[in-house]
């Protein structure tokens, strides 16, 4: 169970997140949709502690972090218990596919090398890239890269997986392989928070959809309900624009 | 490179005092290197001194202009490079007994018609960088208002520079220059004004060790002068005796 409590974040004078509350049950899949520049990425980055929020709290299971005065230890704890999948993949270019996955296990989780490799191979099988284990990222397609990146996140058994537009840097014909994988994870009841512009995908895969605008969640509810019959006028406006792109 | 500290002898048979002697080894025949071997008058004198005092001797090479600095920096214990006693230096170092005496003089090409220092007015005159040679040359340059264009060298052969005509004259120790001229049959002659007289001795840092060394070395030099060793070495390298004061 993950609880976000009244999260605030500003860059200089620019208030980007203006008090966000969100409770996520274990196994729940939540999609966040909303216009560009609303702070969706920033919210994920605050959860993953790549940005430090100005105010608010994050509770994961029994561990509550007060963001007002976060310690270095809290930061590492949050990062180690949440995992991020980036739009730009960001695989470690100097490591093979296998090492991209074992790296976190060995360095962060202090696993033995042999054990880490065993786990990594299992995960590579899951994301369907076992035969690429000794390749370097530069020789993979975009879709393959993103699947490795998801594998890297999965490997750490995070309490929640955060996806920041995982398919928007992909060539159209490669989008599907990544969406299929995420659906698979949803079926396995992984807790996930997904920022996406793929409305249909959000509708199909998620339990709940949040519409975010200008740093606030304006509407949320069961995926199909929000997307098919938005109550908020801004939501329906946004959905109209997105559908007609 | 790992220099041992200068340690006290205190009577132990093993504990030989180590003395590191610095030289530029580019000052034939006082000190030079041939076939990777340091040799010359200075080296022979020091080998003799070391033998007499049961020193462990090491020769350490450096650029001439850096030797005094190396002495200050503790890299070497003394300088064997026809070093002159000067009042400023006496303030800063303990000197041993003098072991050589010689004049500084101007030398010019045989073919030239320079007869006196005045004939060289405004001409290029070479000397060694940073040593007493440079200091004394500048001194007489001012004193007699000669307007020399002083060119400093460090490691190159001044005699060669005169031979090829790059400098009109050179300012160097008389004995050294004459020996080289003779040895190589160079077309260089002495102006013979002998403007500066220098007394050569070994300098030591002004500390306990330096004091002790300077005294021991002084004694040995005195002994060597008395038993003729010094003269013998001088004749071996220069053909004449440069170890006696002429003044």
């Amino acid at each position: 169970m993950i609880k976000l409590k009244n999260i605030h974040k500003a860059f200089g004078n620019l208030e980007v997140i203006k008090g966000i509350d969100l409770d996520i049950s274990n196994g729940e899949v939540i999609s966040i949709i909303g216009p560009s520049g609303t702070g969706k990425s920033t919210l994920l980055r605050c959860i993953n502690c790549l940005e430090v929020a100005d105010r608010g709290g994050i509770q994961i299971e029994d561990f509550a972090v007060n963001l007002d005065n976060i310690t270095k230890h809290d930061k590492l704890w949050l990062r180690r218990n949440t995992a991020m999948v980036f739009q730009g993949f960001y695989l470690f270019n100097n490591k093979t596919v296998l090492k991209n996955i074992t790296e976190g296990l060995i360095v962060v989780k202090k696993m033995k090398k042999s054990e880490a490799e065993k786990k990594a191979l299992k995960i590579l099988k899951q994301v369907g890239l076992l035969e690429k284990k000794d390749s370097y990222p530069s020789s993979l397609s975009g879709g393959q890269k993103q699947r490795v990146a998801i594998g890297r996140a999965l490997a750490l058994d995070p309490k929640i997986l955060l996806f920041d537009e995982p398919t928007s840097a992909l060539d159209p014909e490669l989008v599907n392989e990544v969406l299929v994988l995420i659906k698979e994870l949803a079926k396995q009841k992984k807790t996930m928070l997904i920022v996406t512009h793929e409305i249909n995908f959000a509708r199909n895969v998620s339990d709940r959809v949040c519409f975010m605008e200008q740093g606030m969640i304006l509407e949320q509810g069961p995926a199909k309900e929000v997307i098919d019959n938005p109550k908020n006028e801004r939501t329906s406006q946004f959905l109209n624009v997105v559908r007609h792109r | 490179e790992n220099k041992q500290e200068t340690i006290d002898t205190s009577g132990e048979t093993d504990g030989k005092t180590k003395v590191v002697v610095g030289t530029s080894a580019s000052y034939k025949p006082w000190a030079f290197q041939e076939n990777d071997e340091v040799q010359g008058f200075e080296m022979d004198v020091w080998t003799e001194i070391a033998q007499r005092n049961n020193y462990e001797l090491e020769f350490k090479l450096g650029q001439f202009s850096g030797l005094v600095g190396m002495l200050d920096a503790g890299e070497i214990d003394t300088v064997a490079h026809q070093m002159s006693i000067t009042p400023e230096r006496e303030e800063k170092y303990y000197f041993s007994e003098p072991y050589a005496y010689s004049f500084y003089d101007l030398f010019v090409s045989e073919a030239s018609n320079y007869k006196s220092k005045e004939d060289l007015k405004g001409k290029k005159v070479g000397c060694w960088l940073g040593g007493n040679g440079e200091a004394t040359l500048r001194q007489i340059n001012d004193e007699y208002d000669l307007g020399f264009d002083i060119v400093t060298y460090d490691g190159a052969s001044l005699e060669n520079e005169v031979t090829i005509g790059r400098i009109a004259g050179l300012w160097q120790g008389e004995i050294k220059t004459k020996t080289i001229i003779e040895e190589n049959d160079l077309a260089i002659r002495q102006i013979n004004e002998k403007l500066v007289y220098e007394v050569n001795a070994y300098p030591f840092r002004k500390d306990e060790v330096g004091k002790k060394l300077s005294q021991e070395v002084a004694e040995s030099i005195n002994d060597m002068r008395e038993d003729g060793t010094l003269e013998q070495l001088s004749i071996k390298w220069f053909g004449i005796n440069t170890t006696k004061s002429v003044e």
Partner: protein
Amino acid sequence: MNFDFEFIVRLIPIMLKYSTVTIKLSCLAILIGFTISFFVAIIVYTNIPILSKIFKIYISFFRGTPLMAQLFCFYFGIIPLFPDFVLKISSFQAALVILSLASSAYMAESLRAAISSIHRGQMEAAQSIGMTYMQAMFRIILPQAIKVAIPTLFSSFINIVKDTSLVFAIGVKEMMATAQLEGASGYRYLEAYICVLFVYWAITSVMGYAQKHIEVKLGKSVGEIN
């Protein structure tokens, strides 16, 4: 004045003998300088408050002043201020200190520029899986940065080798000094200097080849398509 080949033949083994001093000094300076440059580059890149200011000045100073003056200042000027040290620091060690510091300034600049060229997504990805900043830096960023910096790092290495030719000024006897001395005693400057030039050229050429070799190797190891 005719060219004396015999003299050169006699000189070569002596040169080669002293080239070991050159090589030893160079290798140590490269090792130490490179190690220092790592930390300086990280400090400057990370913009650690006061330290990064200090090290920017450090870099500017060592890159902006002649090595010879640095050597003289350190050896003749600074060391004698500490009489307790005087006897403990040999000229070889002093040369090593200055060569390492000076070259570290150049290498730190290369590394800093190379680190900046690595996409910051690499750091974020590493931190997002829970690595500390330093773990990410040493395991993910620097290995990639070093590859980018190889060409400039190698010119620093080559410069170090060439710079060792100056250390006779503070009493380290190496190739250059030997050439000078042997040339002076035999009045064979041309032969001596040509000999020393070629030995240096050989050493730096070998380094050039090593660079190409390493570039190819490193290219492979980060999975570039050949």
